[in-house]
């Protein structure tokens, strides 16, 4: 494409006049620098504009200069400059330009900061808004006659293609050209649908219901055509219904609308800011492409379903207070523990997605994720997934635990199918999100941000995304195989064959194969859950210790080591499963080896604390709590890793205690730390410190009690996933303590949510950098503006050089260097 160097452009518009392709577009907001951009999609590289520019600001792509040598007396324009240019443009109109400066003869101006924005303006910036507004206000264009030429294209496309699905038409109707339409289209009184119905979430849910009914109808139709006796068969109907329901959701919510438009050859302007004419909060319930909105959507959805999972835990913990069944039946208990497991896992994945989406682009100075539409799709596909998992509870539930081992899952109630599909959707989100994150980190880091100058959380996110991108397929595959085994009778895993299968001589299935496939994801998945949390610990400790992160490179590499070794340990979940005996040894050695990089993290954290100047606001308390809880989790893991002791501990409450401690220490505590820490940046307000500390002081001791109580009960013989236990084991006191602790943890989380909700509405406004952090997101206002950084910053130092006077990490105004 042809380039305009925006610093040199002083808004002469002769280039616009000569351009045959309508590709030179004024910047937005109009009347402010920068004045013009070239739309790379429209530009035909004719070069006609190049000689027209009186300022020599337009170049062929190959000739774009990095430096400009001033002749003296000419002006440049850049934000931050304070001079004025007053004069006339070539139409003879008077213009006054701000942000300018007159150059001295021989002065060298660095033009590199001007080149990237020129590319980005259209690929991810405001460029398409400008195009759209141009089309809406034709009078503003100098070359009026050419406006109609652009118009026929979409119209022709619309005629040539079959009508779009209904929901997309709905959406188009609802987005009127709002700034005063042309008078010849007199206002037919437009009936606005109620605000409630314009929310993407509501429309998505309606779409899911419609899709489900459609899928069920389709199933019945196929059965009818096949001449089957029973037209209605619940299981295939629900499975097909759930699939179509999910498609219905993403279509109706609008997560695929832009891709549909691309296929039709239509323009898809990148929308920014809240939806026009609606309150700001509505953007959180609609498809929005801003990574920070998506991050908040992930986080809030994660907390919401965490409440569902927690409520289930409360119910079955109360049931476990005493032997015998009192509150719920065994079937309900089994469904609840299964649902608790998977809902909490989904909640953690959403929380991880929330932290990575919100923080990583801010930390590396990217304006957004690399693929904003994919990002939004990746979030929204979770919602129908969560709906499916919750619906499963009402379809008989499923009594398999979250692991869904066949042959049990082949026999379980229909609920298990919706559980499989729900997990499939959440997994799809993981894959897409991690792809997006890896590309973003690889391609969109700020100038000067070498890999070892990235904030440590970015390293943790990259390690996490590597796992998600490469392992998640396996759980999707294993669940899908059970799903089709049930619906289509393909005997992948069941050793006991149907008569029909025996008749054709089919080989029996292998239940152990499922476990290999399943754990190939599900073990690395626990590192997906904890690595971001450990990254948060490493990220926050230096801020509150006022010291550099001890052994930055070691911590970064330990995340990668955990991620990679994590792929070689899956069969430690199967030490008692009856796989080949010799396999136990290599998997034991690999498992124990994970302790080494984990130990490096612990010791480096201690090194960071040593000789610091520690302060203890709520985020720091949660970080320290996380270290103590993760320590319990890590240490209780050692005897699980050694095969011999695991033969005793496997499938007992010892493992339950171990796992909950790793999840709380590796995810929940750091997650809350992150929420409190970045709360001022997200909301622009201060959370209530007293309530935050109350949350901590309730949750931490309670969690210790819960974890140690679970482990102790397990040693006494308490098995996993049992609705009732033998009073002869003498574990009733442990059960009492664990239940009480669980209730306290739940209450503390409710206090936290109350705090976050109240503070967002009423609390004091927060300053830009309440923690005196060096991280770039704290160098811009709270709440963060729509386009996070006014211009790309430049990394000029180490990220954690606390205690080194005069050092900075990022230079927010690299352009001013030319002053």
């Amino acid at each position, binding site marked *: 494409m042809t380039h305009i160097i925006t610093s040199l452009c002083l808004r002469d518009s002769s280039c616009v006049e000569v351009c045959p392709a309508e590709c030179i577009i004024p910047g937005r907001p109009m009347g402010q620098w920068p004045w013009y951009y070239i739309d790379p999609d429209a530009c035909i590289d004719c070069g006609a504009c190049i000689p027209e520019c009186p300022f020599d600001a337009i170049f062929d792509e190959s000739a774009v200069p990095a430096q400009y040598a001033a002749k003296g007396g000419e002006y440049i324009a850049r934000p931050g400059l304070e001079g004025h240019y007053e004069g006339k443009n070539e139409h003879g109109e008077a213009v006054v330009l701000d942000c300018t400066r007159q150059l001295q003869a021989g002065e060298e101006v660095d033009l590199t900061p001007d080149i990237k924005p020129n590319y980005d303006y259209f690929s991810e910036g405001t460029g398409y808004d400008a195009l759209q507004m141009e089309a809406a206000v034709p009078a503003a264009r100098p070359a009026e006659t050419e406006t109609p030429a652009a118009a026929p294209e979409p119209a022709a496309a619309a005629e040539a293609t079959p009508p779009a699905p209904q929901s997309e038409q709905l959406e188009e109707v609802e987005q009127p050209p709002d700034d005063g339409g042309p008078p010849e289209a007199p206002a037919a009184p437009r009936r606005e649908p109620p605000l409630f119905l314009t929310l993407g979430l509501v429309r998505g849910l309606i779409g899911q219901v419609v899709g489900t009914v459609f899928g069920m109808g389709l199933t019945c139709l196929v059965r009818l055509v096949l001449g089957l006796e029973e037209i209605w068969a619940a299981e295939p109907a629900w499975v097909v219904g759930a699939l179509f329901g999910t498609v219905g959701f993403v279509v109706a919510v609008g997560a695929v609308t832009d891709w549909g438009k691309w296929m039709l050859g239509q323009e898809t302007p990148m929308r920014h800011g809240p939806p026009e004419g609606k309150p700001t909060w509505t953007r959180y319930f609609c498809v929005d492409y801003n990574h920070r909105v998506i991050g908040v959507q992930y986080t809030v959805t994660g907390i919401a379903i965490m409440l569902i999972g927690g409520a289930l835990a409360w119910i079955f913990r109360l049931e476990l207070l005493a032997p015998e069944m009192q509150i719920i039946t*065994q079937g309900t208990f*089994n469904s609840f523990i299964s649902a608790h497991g998977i809902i909490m896992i989904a909640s953690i994945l959403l929380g991880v997605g929330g932290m990575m989406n919100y923080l990583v682009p801010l930390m590396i100075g990217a304006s957004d994720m690399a693929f904003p539409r994919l990002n939004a799709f990746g979030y929204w596909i979770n919602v129908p997934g969560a709906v499916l998992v919750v619906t499963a509870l009402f379809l008989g539930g499923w009594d398999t635990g979250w692991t869904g*081992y066949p*042959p*049990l899952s082949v*026999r379980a109630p229909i609920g298990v199918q919706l559980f499989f599909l729900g997990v499939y959707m959440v997994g799809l989100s993981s894959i897409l999100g991690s792809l997006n994150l890896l590309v973003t980190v690889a391609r969109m880091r700020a100038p000067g941000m070498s890999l070892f100058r990235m904030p440590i959380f970015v390293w943790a996110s990259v390690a996490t995304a590597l796992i998600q991108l490469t392992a998640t397929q396996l759980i999707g595959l294993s669940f899908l195989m059970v799903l089709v085994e049930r619906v289509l009778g393909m005997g992948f895993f069941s*050793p*006991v064959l149907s008569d029909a299968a025996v008749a054709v001589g089919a080989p029996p299935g292998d*239940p*152990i194969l499922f476990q290999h496939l399943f754990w190939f994801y599900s073990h690395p998945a626990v590192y997906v859950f904890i690595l971001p949390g450990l990254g948060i610990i490493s990220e926050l400790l230096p801020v509150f210790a006022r*010291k*550099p992160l*001890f*052994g*930055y490179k070691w911590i970064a590499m330990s995340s990668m080591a955990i991620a990679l070794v994590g792929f070689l340990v899956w069969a430690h979940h199967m030490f*008692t*499963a*009856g796989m080949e005996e010799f396999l*136990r*040894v290599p998997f*034991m050695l690999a498992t*124990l*080896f994970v*302790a*080494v990089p984990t*130990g490096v993290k*612990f*010791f*480096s954290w*201690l*090194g960071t*604390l*040593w*000789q*610091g*100047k*520690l*302060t203890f606001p709520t985020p720091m308390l949660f970080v*320290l709590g996380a270290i103590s809880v993760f*320590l319990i989790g890590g*240490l209780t893991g*050692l*005897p699980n890793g*050694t*095969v*011999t*002791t695991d033969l*005793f501990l*496997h499938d*007992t409450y010892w493992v339950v205690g171990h796992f909950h401690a790793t999840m709380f220490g590796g995810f929940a505590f750091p997650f809350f730390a992150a929420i409190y820490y970045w709360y001022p940046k997200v909301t622009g307000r201060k959370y209530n410190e007293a309530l935050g500390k109350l949350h901590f002081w309730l949750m931490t001791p309670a969690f210790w009690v819960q974890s140690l109580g679970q482990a*102790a009960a397990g*040693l*006494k*013989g308490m098995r996993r*996933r*049992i609705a009732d*236990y*033998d009073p002869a084991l003498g574990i009733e006191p442990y059960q009492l303590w664990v239940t009480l602790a669980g209730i306290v943890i739940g209450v503390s989380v409710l206090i936290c949510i109350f705090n976050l909700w109240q503070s967002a509405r009423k609390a004091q406004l927060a300053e830009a950098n309440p923690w005196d952090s060096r991280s770039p997101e704290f160098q811009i206002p709270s709440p963060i503006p729509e386009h996070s950084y006014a211009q790309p910053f430049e990394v000029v130092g180490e990220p954690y050089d606390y*205690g*080194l006077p005069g050092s900075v990490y990022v230079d927010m105004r690299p352009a001013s260097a030319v002053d």
Partner: protein
Amino acid sequence: MAVLIAVVTVAVAAGLDSASLLPPLASAQGVIIDWLFGLHLKVIAFLFALVMVFMLYSIVVFRRKAGESGDGAHIHGNTTLEIIWTVVPVLIVAYFGYLGVVTLRDVTAAGPDEMVVKVTGSQWSWKFEYPRQGLTSSELVLPVNRDVRFDITSIDVIHSFWVPEFRVKQDAVPGAVNPLRVTTTVVGEYKVRCAEICGLVHAGMLAPVRVLPRADFDAWVAAEIDRLAALETPAARGAQLYETQGCKACHSLDGSVLVGPSWQNLFGSQEPLADGSSVTVDEDYIRNSILKPGEQLVEGFNNLMPATYEDMLTEADVEDIIAFMQSLQD
């Protein structure tokens, strides 16, 4: 600092030691496992003390004092330290890996003259077959001080054979036979507890275990053989099948409703079916319900009965069970 860590280590280790965390021990394999677990607890106590003492010390000593300003010491790291706390754990981990391999070898080693017990799990009961003695029992009876090899399998879903006092466990996988070796050491009564979730009544999938002195075991075998030989009436054989084939996990004899209908006074009664019709519980209905459990479901019950009895029971077995049910009239 070192003293502090040592004190806390000893205190935590002693606390864990005196807490008698484990259930009673009744197998030779368990001795090895308990020893190794104890060693783990000592390492856990040390590492716990190491991290917590440093952390709490830092919190107390390095906290920002009132009126203090400025940052902490500008220390980026220490490569020597990092190498030390990478290499030392590698060595510790390698040592534990070595111990794991050696103990695993000992725990799985075959004895010279093993007694074999075939263990079969099904939803939700255990069956124990003694091939050499020609016995089948729903109770696991073993002689003390004997090497026993359990050949463990399942007829439906995955279960897990675990007697906490024996320590070791092994999953029962349909389509496969997995061995587990236990050397009994202590006379006593224990329970087999299914450790892998296996559906509705997983929690109740227990079976009694008795470890007897050698002479008592032989007496039990003889008595069982006599008792089984004495089972001349079909109803008595049916009662035995009720015990050993897992019927009793879901069907009571005293009128209480478990997972399935109670067998008390069931034969000859009229039962409403889930499809709205009703049926007289006669021989045909019972036979069909055993072999094809889902076909004629009684209202109020779910189709949870394993469909595997067609393969497990002979025609004569089914007749015996029907006879047993007929005998359960008041």
